[in-house]
């Protein structure tokens, strides 16, 4: 266990292993995404109430779910980097933020595009939507904080502190927003998907959720590889790698 942990902390090992993982994972992910999208767009029956607009669910729900999970990945990496001072955790944390923000953005945009045909409005202040917006702010905060520091070692620590503070707060934010919304007259709009969903619609959805998770992993590894290269550009193993590349 500990040796594995040590290996995880070693840049050359992570660089090499992520390279060989990505070789298979990335094409598989892209394939799954393609299949899922085509399946969802063209090969499923329309919803009996929403018609064809419900097809957005195949990108909306996965994006929202992975965006949420991404914050916890980021905070966990942040905690590890603070406690064990592990360089790779730092890098992982800092690489999570832009991906998470992008997925949150996708969830918001697709949700609000979906809202227009179903609710007749681009935006409502629904509990879940509001907390998604707050999540976007949390992500943007981490990104902006990292960019603002010159000393990147210090930047990573600062972001770790911030993401931990955010983690303590996320349940509070979710609970409070939920509670806030139920206090008011709900705006007579409800998510529809909560009722049982037909298997012919469910399978592509599950596929897309899996694909989005895989995509998150791919993007994270890709980003980390680039970042590792940048930070370790003066070390021996990168030089060797370059020579091997050149030959």
């Amino acid at each position: 266990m500990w040796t594995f942990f040590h290996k995880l902390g070693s840049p050359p090992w992570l660089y090499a292993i992520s390279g060989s993982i990505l070789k298979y994972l990335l094409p598989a992910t892209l394939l799954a995404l393609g299949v899922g999208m085509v399946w969802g767009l063209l090969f499923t029956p329309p919803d009996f109430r929403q018609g064809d607009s419900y097809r957005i669910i195949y990108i909306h729900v996965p994006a929202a779910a992975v965006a949420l999970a991404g914050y916890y990945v980021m905070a966990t990496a942040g905690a590890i980097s603070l406690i064990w001072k592990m360089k790779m955790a730092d890098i992982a944390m800092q690489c999570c933020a832009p991906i998470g923000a992008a997925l949150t953005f996708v969830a918001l945009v697709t949700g609000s595009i979906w809202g227009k045909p179903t609710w007749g409005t681009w935006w409502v202040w629904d509990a879940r939507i509001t907390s998604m917006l707050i999540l976007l702010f949390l992500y943007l905060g981490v990104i902006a904080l990292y960019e603002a520091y010159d000393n990147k070692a210090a930047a990573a620590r600062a972001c770790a502190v911030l993401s931990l503070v955010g983690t303590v707060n996320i349940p509070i934010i979710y609970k409070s927003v939920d509670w806030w919304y139920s206090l008011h007259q709900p705006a007579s709009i409800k998510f529809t998907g909560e009722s049982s969903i037909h298997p012919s619609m469910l399978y592509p959805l599950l596929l897309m959720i899996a694909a989005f998770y895989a995509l998150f992993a791919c993007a994270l590894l890709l980003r980390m590889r680039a970042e590792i290269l940048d930070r370790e550009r003066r070390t021996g193993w990168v030089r060797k790698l370059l020579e091997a590349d050149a030959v």
Partner: protein
Amino acid sequence: MLSAQQLALSRGGRELFGGLSFDICPGQLVQIEGANGAGKTSLLRILAGLSRYGFEGRVERHAPLLYLGHQPAVKAMLTPRENLAWHVAGEADFGAAAIDAALARVGLYGYEDVPSHALSAGQHRRVSLARLYLSNSPLWLLDEPFTAIDVDGVAALEERKAAHVAAGGAVVFTSHQPMRGNYNVRRLCLRRGLL
């Protein structure tokens, strides 16, 4: 009192110093020299424990320290007296009489109750230098303490440092001018990463 081992620092792609090891012992008066941008301030901040990321090597401090940086840590809205009485460095509570005596020593007699923003550049710095007459930390780290100080002030400061060292303290300071008085100074010269 302080030992540094294998300190190495690069900033902005330039190596400032590397493999720097030394000990500071009681009774030593150490002047860090070097051209502008040689890394004196960076080194001092590492020694003080203010910089904690982005350098290599280890620093061990075995004594309470007094650090005065480029910024004098003097609040413009407080008078010199208040600045010293409420200083945030967590040292002893200085008595009112001790504070007035220290202010007199740095030539601020009569300015004790003037708001610090109405002081001249040199007087402003002198407020912070008054802590040299109040502190009982044995180890002093001073970054260009003579900035903006006039000739008499520099002489008085040199004397104070010598007295502190004679009493078993240690002083590490940076300055572009050699000390005028005839003191026993150990020099650390930062030049292209070498000592």
